[in-house]
């Protein structure tokens, strides 16, 4: 199966941009998480499910909710040297926007086993979009590396 994301060349000259897609917002968020991890690690299959973290996040809109989720991954990469994927993710509408509950699994960076690429340092709002399409959902994200 091809990955539900692809890197975009002409959006961010100095950084990394990708688009990701899925049948639901949840699938699309999972794909965006993998695309972010894949910006840092050449083969995301090398990241073993040894550590678990739980996230509860809220935002006014779906795009900002994705921003918060990806930002969590960047935070754990620096603060705990953890590379994380999402195993389970639920998005709910609230009165004022959206909230998300996610279970992240992964392990500590080991350059011997994880072929490392670029260091993602921030998620940006540049052209950030999460939108419904005729086939499901689609997002564009630009990462600061």
């Amino acid at each position, binding site marked *: 199966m091809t990955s539900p994301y692809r*890197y*975009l*060349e*002409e*959006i*961010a*000259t*100095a*950084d*990394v941009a990708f688009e990701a897609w899925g049948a639901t917002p949840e699938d699309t968020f999972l794909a965006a998480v993998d695309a972010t991890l894949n910006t*840092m*690690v*050449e083969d995301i299959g090398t990241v073993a499910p040894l550590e678990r973290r739980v996230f509860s996040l809220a935002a006014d809109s779906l795009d900002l909710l994705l921003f918060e989720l990806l*930002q969590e991954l*960047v*935070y754990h*990469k*620096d*603060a705990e*040297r953890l*590379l994380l994927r999402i195993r389970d993710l639920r998005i709910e509408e609230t009165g004022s926007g959206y909230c998300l509950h996610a279970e992240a699994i992964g392990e500590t*960076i080991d*350059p011997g086993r994880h072929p*490392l*690429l*670029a*260091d993602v*340092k*921030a*998620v*940006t*709002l*540049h052209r*950030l979009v999460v939108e419904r399409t005729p086939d499901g959902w689609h997002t564009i994200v*630009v990462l*600061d*590396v």
Partner: protein
Amino acid sequence: MPVPTDVVRISDTVWEIPVSHKPGMLVPARIFATEKLLSDFDDGVFEQITNVATLPGIVGHACCMPDGHWGYGFPIGGLAAMDPDRGVISPGGIGFDINCGMRLCLTNLGYEEVKPRLRSLVDRIAGRVPAGVGVEGTVRASRDDFREAVEQGARWAVKRGYGWKEDLERTEEEGCLPGADASRVSEKAIDRGYRQIGTLGSGNHYLEIQVAKVENVFDRETAGAFGIVLPDQVVVMFHCGSRGFGHQVATDHLRVFLAAMRAKYRIHVPDRELACAPFLSPEGQDYFAAMKCAVNMSFVNRQVILHRIREVFSEIFGKDPKDLGMRQVYDVAHNTAKIERHVFEGKPRELLVHRKGATRAFGPGMPGLPEVYRKTGQPVILGGSMETGSYLLAGVDTGDRTFFTTAHGSGRAMSRTAARKRYRGRQLQEQMEERGIYVRTASWSGLAEEAGPAYKNIDDVVEATERAGLSRRVVRLLPMGNVKG
């Protein structure tokens, strides 16, 4: 790329986009570039610099330097001075990597002395200055130590033995912005930062051993004042910033500004990355105090890295760093916002100057310069691509047209993905070695992304700054050895 049709040519290196270009522009935008550089600019620059011209309180012009390219909100190479009383502060005008900057250190060694030991030097420095994804630094600091460090700046490092007292005089703002307040910084930012002191980072961050060839010294007298006095003298230049800490500070406040801007201050900007708040508002002041912490963290980081470089040279050459002449030339910041005093419309004024991918370049005699550079003007360090070379420039009297600001490097011309498709890291390393440049990298693909042709021609950029009266050439420096982040 199409240059907007309403651009007015002010001179052969100054171009103006009038306020009639788009609704909401408060001041004209000015681009400092040769006609060739201007025509090569990406569309984003024109869109973004005219967006910057709409920010409340901007004075003079929204300026873009000759190495300008698309960025987040502001273009890289962007400069905006605000009236602090009625203007805004915008994290997008500073960049995520707060106080990303350059430092240059001398040696009294010649090319021929260093050449046989180049590989050992580069390998050992690569081991001592960690680079790449998720690495930890070599300075042990608790969270509380770190809070102290970000309030005190480079002085904190020097007090602990990482460097010399004179390094502080030779650092922009003496390595510390006063008013940094760690209580305005989130725990998350502290978590990301406290183990990263002394790390190089990745992306376009690097550390380079370079040579000042005799034929590349343009102004012998100023070069001498900057410490470049020997034929084919070897120097060390590096480029890095405030690492995860600065990025977290920027992200935290971007989020706050985004919410407060519309609901509380009724400010509407054309791009969310231009999120801003009135400088004197609680949100503006919180960010300013936190941003200063990130500025200081970066000065600490570069101070520790300088110390590691001196250690390695000392070990390899078996001499004290002082006997190796390893004085710091200068340290310049290129992602900041600072309150500075400038003469504007004939009167001295305090202004909030945002520089993003743009370097302060004070002219001769200006306050804020150390005595040693009072006559020459401020040393300005411009990093080029790892294949082509870098520059040491000096600030000039005519820099007032940009609030004494010049370019910061070559500026990217090709996307990272495109560079990765075109070049192979290992092959590039071999080719560079054939040309006498030894490079170590934390990531092969990262190396490919930094290939020379991915950047604008640094000679063109520097020539444009000189012709536009923003800075002048002193020495061109060629790479010998490179540690790539």
